C-alpha cells in the first residue's frame, strides 16, 4: 500500500469536533435503548416463571427445550445443567438470538459508537490511539454472523408456530381447542412479523441468496429472493429496533397476564 507523502493533521482528542448539531443524541439513545433491553432480558431470562399463559408462550423462552412447562420439547431440567447456575429454559436458547443481534452489521456500527466511542459519531474524536478493527480476536468472530443467521431463521419458524398456536384456545369446560384471537395473539403475531422483517433483511442473507453472484439475471428465483431481501434491508435499522422492543414487550405482556396484573382480552 502506498504511504501518505506529507504530514497528516494532529489527531483530534476525545469528543473534539466542530459539529454544532446534537451529535451525541443518537449514541446516547442507542446506549440507553440497548442497556435497557439487556437489563430487562437478563432479568426475565433468570425468572423461570410467568413465561406462559395457556396457549401463549413468551418469545424469550421459545422454544422450551427443557423445563417444567407443558411446552417443553424434551422434558424437565437436564442432568448436565451445572448446579451452580440457576436453570431457566431461556438461558438454554437465548445465546442464538443474542449472537445474531450482537454480530448484526447494523448493531455493530451502533454499539461501536454508543458503548466504546470508536468513534462516538462521525468526525468526533476517539479516546483510543490504537485501532484493530475487526481483524483480531475477539472482533474477528463477527464474521460468524451467517451462522447465527441460520439459527435465527430456525427461531423464526418456531415463533411462527407459536403465533399459530396462540390462535387456538382450550375451552376449560369441554377441553376442546377452538380458534380465537386475543390481544396476546396479536402481540405474538406482530412479534413474528417484526422479527421476520429484521431477519429477512439481514446483510448476510442478502449475500447468500444472490449477492454472492455477479450475474443473477438468468436465475429468476434467486433474483426475486435478492430483491425481496434488499427491500427489507433498506430499513434494516428500523426493523432491528422495532423487533427488539416488541420482543421485550411480548415477554412483558405474557408475564403480566400470567401474574394476573393484566388480563388478556379475547377479541374473537
Amino acid at each position, binding site marked *: 500500500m*502506498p504511504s501518505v507523502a506529507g504530514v497528516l493533521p494532529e489527531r483530534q482528542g476525545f469528543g473534539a469536533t*466542530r459539529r454544532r448539531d446534537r451529535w451525541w443524541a443518537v449514541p446516547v439513545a442507542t446506549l440507553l435503548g440497548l442497556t435497557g433491553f439487556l437489563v430487562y432480558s437478563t432479568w426475565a431470562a433468570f425468572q423461570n416463571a410467568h413465561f406462559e399463559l395457556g396457549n401463549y408462550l413468551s418469545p424469550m423462552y421459545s422454544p422450551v427445550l427443557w423445563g417444567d412447562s407443558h411446552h417443553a420439547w424434551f422434558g424437565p431440567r437436564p442432568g448436565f445443567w451445572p448446579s451452580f447456575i440457576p436453570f431457566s429454559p431461556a438461558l438454554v436458547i437465548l445465546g442464538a438470538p443474542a449472537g445474531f443481534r450482537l454480530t448484526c452489521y447494523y448493531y455493530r456500527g451502533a454499539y461501536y459508537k454508543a458503548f466504546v466511542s470508536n468513534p462516538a459519531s462521525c*468526525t468526533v474524536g476517539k479516546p483510543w490511539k490504537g485501532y484493530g*478493527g475487526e481483524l483480531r480476536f475477539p472482533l*474477528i468472530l463477527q464474521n460468524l454472523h451467517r451462522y447465527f443467521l441460520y439459527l435465527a431463521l430456525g427461531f423464526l419458524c418456531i415463533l411462527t408456530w407459536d403465533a399459530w398456536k396462540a390462535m387456538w384456545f382450550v375451552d376449560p369446560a369441554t377441553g376442546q381447542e377452538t380458534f380465537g384471537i386475543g390481544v396476546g395473539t396479536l402481540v405474538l403475531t406482530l412479534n413474528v412479523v417484526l422479527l421476520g422483517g429484521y431477519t429477512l433483511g439481514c*446483510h448476510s442473507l442478502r449475500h447468500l441468496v444472490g449477492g454472492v453472484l*455477479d*450475474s443473477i439475471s438468468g436465475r429468476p428465483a434467486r433474483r426475486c429472493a435478492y430483491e425481496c431481501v434488499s427491500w427489507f434491508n433498506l430499513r434494516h435499522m428500523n426493523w432491528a429496533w422495532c423487533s427488539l422492543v416488541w420482543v421485550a414487550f411480548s415477554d412483558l405482556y405474557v408475564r403480566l397476564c400470567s401474574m394476573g396484573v393484566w388480563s388478556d382480552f379475547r377479541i374473537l
Partner: protein
Amino acid sequence: MASRTFHIWRAEAGEEGGFQEYSTDITEGMVVLDAVHQIQAESAGDLAVRWNCKAGKCGSCSAEVNGNPRLMCMTRMSDLPEDQPVTIEPMRAFPLLRDLVTDVSWNFEVKKAIRKFKPRPPDAEDGTWRMDQRDVDRVQEFRKCIECFLCQDVCHVLRDSQKHDEFIGPRFFVHTAALEMHPLDTEDRLADLRKAQGVGYCNITKCCTKVCPEHITITDNAIIPLKERVVDRFYDPVRNLFRIISGR
C-alpha cells in the same frame, strides 16, 4: 443583504495554522463556495481554495463546513445556522498544502494498486460481450462517484487512526466493488481486500454513506457485500468444505 461571519482555516504546509475571521455580505441563493470567493475578492486575495465546476460534479471543493465534510459548492448558506459564525477548514484525512487545500495524491496511488478490470473472453460473434441490464444495474450506482474524497475524510480509520498504509478507505471499496461485482470481470481481489486493503478495519459506522454527495449507499451496497465475499473465502469453514468437495 445580511453580513455573515466566517472562521476560515489559514496555514501553510507543515505550519501550525489557525482560524481567521472574515465577514462578507450574503445574498439569496449563495453557497459557501460563493462566500469564500467573495472573501477572496474582498479581503483575502491569498486564500487558497480548490474548486472547478461549482455544480457538485468535479469533487474539487471538498472541505469541512461547521465540522461536517461537505462540497462547498453544494452547501447553501441558508441551510447553516445564522446566529453563529460559519467555520470552514480543510479535510483532516490528508496532508495540508495550504489553507483549504489538501494533498489528495495518496488516493491516486491507492487506485493504481488495485487490480484492474479483466473481462472474460468476448462471447458474441462481433467480438464483444452481451450483458443483462439487471446485472449491470447493481454496479451502476458505484460509477456515480465523483472522487471528492469526503468519504475518505469522514472515515475514522483514516481520519483518526491514520491507517493509510493498511486501509484503502470507502472510496476504493466502492471502486473495487464496481470491478469485483461486474458481470464480465474475472479478476480475483479477495485476498487483497482482506490483507493489503484492510476491509476488516471497517466497523460499519456508515459515516461514508452519510456524507456522500452522490448518495451512493457505500456501506450497505459496496463494503458489506465485499466483507461477505471475504467471509466466504476466508472465514466460513462450511462453505470452504463445500468448495473442496464440489471442486468449485
